[in-house]
């Protein structure tokens, strides 16, 4: 009798264990109708881009899904890193409008603003803004120096745009590499790199900080931590660059820092708002299920920090969970920032292919 009762308890405990994992699985499921509609609109916008191009450019913009182009991206400017695809500066105004309309459809309003602000920042860099200035030196190094400005961003379709089969919308240039993989109603932005230099600029009397929210929200979260939490979060060593930047596909580093499960509900919400600055670049139809998935994994997520906690300091931070890696890495200067957003389980839609 006792053995039977014990066995029942064991079965019950296993049931609890299995049920406890269900929210994460449920949260990962997209809202089918919203995302299907979004994919249909995005594919339509992509096909409109194709319809504006002549045969030569149409051939230049398209790549096979399983080819090398999928992983060819960089934070570096043109001239140092040679991109393939169609260059914005080579397009006619209607063609360029079609490309920007595609981006506006694929991204959320805030995501589109962020991307365009990064590009405008590069225009500023071209004009000599940013304390580092456009350190080209191309001529001195053999005439292959860096080229800056919003003309130097490239669009590529890796796989034909489709509402059913996988394809990647690849858009990038200096400090920007968006790799948005679609598979039917699902989409992922991983891996995507954002960056900024100058990180602050003024245009038409307005101060623009393309990655300002990422920075400010992170400092606010740090300020909310108790000394004990800060001690766990802060790495006692300098992190001078992205650990999982370009060329580091398929690697998962050992997570370090403060376990997010130790944070209060309000602090966890604040952390999710930091995450949204990356995950929320995508159209809301894809960002919502992605945010739910990340939130479900918060108990296994870590927040790490290197540098002072006072706003305005040069710092590095990392958020890492089972399906997420975010790194924010100023380049020795708060006016020059690199960031990366990855999903170790779904970079380039790898998980979509498995399902």
């Amino acid at each position, binding site marked *: 009798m006792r053995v039977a009762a014990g066995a029942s308890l064991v079965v019950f405990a296993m049931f609890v264990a299995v049920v406890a994992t269900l929210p994460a699985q449920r949260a990962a499921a997209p809202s089918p109708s919203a995302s299907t509609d979004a994919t249909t609109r995005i594919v339509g916008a992509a096909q409109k881009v194709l319809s504006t191009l002549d045969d030569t450019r149409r051939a230049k913009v398209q790549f096979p899904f399983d080819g090398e182009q999928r992983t060819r991206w960089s934070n570096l400017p043109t001239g140092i890193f040679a991109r393939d695809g169609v260059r914005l500066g080579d397009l006619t105004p209607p063609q360029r409008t079609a490309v920007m309309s595609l981006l506006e459809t694929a991204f959320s309003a805030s995501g589109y603003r962020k991307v365009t602000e990064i590009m405008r920042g590069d225009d500023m860099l071209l004009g000599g803004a940013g304390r580092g200035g456009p350190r080209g030196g191309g001529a001195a190094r053999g005439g292959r120096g860096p080229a800056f400005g919003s003309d130097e961003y490239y669009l590529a379709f890796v796989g034909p745009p489709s509402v059913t089969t996988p394809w990647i919308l690849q858009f990038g240039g200096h400090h920007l590499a968006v790799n948005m993989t679609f598979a039917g109603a699902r989409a992922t932005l991983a891996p995507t790199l954002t960056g900024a230099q100058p990180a602050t600029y003024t245009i038409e009397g307005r101060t623009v900080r393309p990655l300002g929210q990422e920075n400010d929200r992170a400092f606010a979260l740090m300020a909310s931590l108790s000394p004990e939490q800060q001690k766990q979060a802060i790495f006692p060593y300098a992190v001078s660059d992205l650990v999982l930047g370009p060329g580091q596909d398929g690697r998962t580093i050992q997570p370090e820092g403060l376990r997010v499960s130790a944070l209060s509900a309000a602090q966890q919400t604040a952390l999710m708002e930091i995450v949204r600055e990356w995950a929320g670049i995508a159209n809301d139809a894809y960002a919502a299920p992605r945010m739910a998935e990340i939130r479900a994994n918060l108990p296994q997520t870590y927040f790490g920090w290197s540098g*002072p906690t006072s706003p305005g300091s040069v710092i590095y931070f990392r958020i890492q969970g089972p399906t997420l890696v975010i790194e924010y890495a100023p380049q020795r200067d708060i006016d020059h920032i690199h960031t990366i957003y990855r999903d170790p389980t779904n970079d380039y839609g790898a998980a979509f292919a498995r399902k």
Partner: protein
Amino acid sequence: MRASNVLIPVLVVAIAVAAGVRVSAHRLDEFLQAARIDLRENGVSIDLALTPGADIADAIVATIDRNSNGVVTADEQDAYAQDVLSRLTATLDGARLPLRLRGVSFPTVDDIRQGNGTIRIQLDASHSALRNGQHQLFFSNGHHAGQSAYLANALVPASSRVSVIGQRRTVDQRELTIDYSVGMAQARFASGGLMVGLVAVVMMVRYTRRDGNRS
């Protein structure tokens, strides 16, 4: 907790960062050296990614392209990799761990000069299968010390029987000590709920057995 416990690492890191401050568009005047370490029960793999900044690239190229013909030959690649290897130190549980060159890939000289060339060196060390329990790997990179920025990280081990317990680094990440364990399969990023459930299962089994022994 005393505030100084938080402030000390922050100040040390801030000083380290400030010491290298010179505004630049990219990491022009430093040699970025990233080590990613993969631990196994019977060996260690280390991937080194070495990216010289454009301002120091000519000096680095001169040490690699020894005949200055603008091409890095297989012999020159091997010689450079061996030189890097000679400046690395690895120990396992306090005993020297000999590293072996497994592979090298070089960008073009032009790419290195542009600051866009990453030299990749793969290293291996084999050892007999570790006994169950805790172990410690120490790694030190002395290549091009003084003008380099270092990153050093343990990867999540592929085997569930190997798990990283902790990592300790010098402030500049030139040295990394990894404490890890070999033994019972570990769940990486396991669901908290699943872990709670498994613990409950173990406790129930123990309870049942203890109760059974009493009767």
